[in-house]
């Protein structure tokens, strides 16, 4: 008898729908309107790499020690350096970072002894060509400039 009444009055269906409608409250809306609404990524987010420069004199912090290139599992970092004859120190000339092979594991960042290489919060890394994903020193220092589609 109870089973019959349950099926007549659609109790199971209403029970299910009650849970559904309970969650229509606007404070439970989770969808982000992406291009208009910028997502807030975490502080430690591992995104686009950046080669930090000293803000006081604009020189690179990188000491061309090559540790990041050794730490990288994919061997995608190439550090070019030459010895400065006057100061007898290695100086950075080129720095190539192949983002198309990067898996953002953060090992290069961990290996850097002077915090020059850093994975930043930039996450818009698309490019129209494969070559565009290979970043040179200038790109790494200045950062990508994605087109802003929303103010």
């Amino acid at each position: 008898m109870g089973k019959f009444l349950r099926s007549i009055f659609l109790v199971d269906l209403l029970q299910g729908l009650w849970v559904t409608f309970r969650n229509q409250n606007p404070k439970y809306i989770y969808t982000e309107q992406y291009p208009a609404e910028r997502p807030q990524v975490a502080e430690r987010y591992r995104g686009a790499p950046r080669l930090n420069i000293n803000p006081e004199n604009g020189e690179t912090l990188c000491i061309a020690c090559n540790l990041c290139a050794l730490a990288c599992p994919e061997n995608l970092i190439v550090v070019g350096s030459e010895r400065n004859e006057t100061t007898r120190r290695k100086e950075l000339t080129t720095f190539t970072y192949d983002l198309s092979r990067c898996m953002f594991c953060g090992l290069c960042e961990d290996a850097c002894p002077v915090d020059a290489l850093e994975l930043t919060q930039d996450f818009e890394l698309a490019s129209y060509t494969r070559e565009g994903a290979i970043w040179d020193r200038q790109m790494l220092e200045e950062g990508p400039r994605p087109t802003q589609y929303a103010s």
Partner: protein
Amino acid sequence: MPESTFLDSSELVLNMGPQHPSTHGVLRVILKLDGEKVMGTECVIGYLHRGVEKIGENRTYQQFAPYVDRMDYVAAVSNGLGYCLAVEKLISAEAPPRAQAVRVILTELNRIASHLLWLGTHALDIGAITPVFYCFREREEVLKIFENYCGARLTTHAFRIGGLQYETYDGFEEQVKAFSNLFLPKVDEYEELLTNNRIWVSRLKGVGILSVEECKEYGVTGPVLRAAGLAWDLRRAQPYSGYDQYEFDIPTGTSGDTYDRYLVRIEEMRQSVRIIRQAVDRLPSGPVMGKVPKALKPPVGEVYVSIEAPKGELGYFLVSDGSLQPYRVRVRPPSLVNLQALDRMVRGGLVADVVAIIGTLDIVLGEVDR
């Protein structure tokens, strides 16, 4: 009725997958059908083979750690824990107590995330569309904790050999506590949607029964084994990473059918919350990274370390020849071993049950094919 009617003239061979959405990736199952009845199956795997074990032989021990996250990508933290524990055993190092506690918190959170994804997709396969949105809503909270902790949401690379790379962030304990308080009522909500749902029960009860003996024969572990009735959990049987300090129950089923596996996983989520609460309350202070040399050269030898991953026993077998790179890396993935029981479970069932059984095995093809 005579045997030779035109209806049973031949058995029908049907390819299910590799693009079938309910095979959870790229699993191809060749079904031999008699009408709607499954007479036999054959699994074709390897569509997602990336040679992870071979990659391990060509990387240093630290460099291989990000790759293990990509095997079982819905439970990346568990993979990382297993690998780190294996290398730590090889070099006879141990993570500091604080690192172990944080590891337990993150692995249990990952177990919840993995089970949530399983529950959502499994219900979706059966035809219940609603639970997947509920599950992903809570999974999002877990992924936010991962993102805040280590900067990545899915392939986290959260653990390093010897401990942790990152100290916990400000507000970590509060966020984890808030999640554990928020989560338990949500589990009741999933149960409200499914447990007594008539369609759900009739689709799952008595489907894909696997007894304890059969589980042992096939080497099936994890929730599938526990649903059959054996309380075998590596967190209890051979505690690692300080699991012996936490109180938790091992949920078991009785009949070993798909419905029991559902109940076991639901209960496991509650037990994970229990472990997380204990771990957060007793989070010790201290360093998070042990003394491990940057250029890691373990002594010659071999180790096998297994942990209780969300899907079952996840084992790592490492052979060291004393150089910077492992001589051999072998992974015992729970998904691959559990998948072997598929044929036994679906034989004699209906085609619709195949979908339910693949879902209940909780396989991830990234781990099956590696």
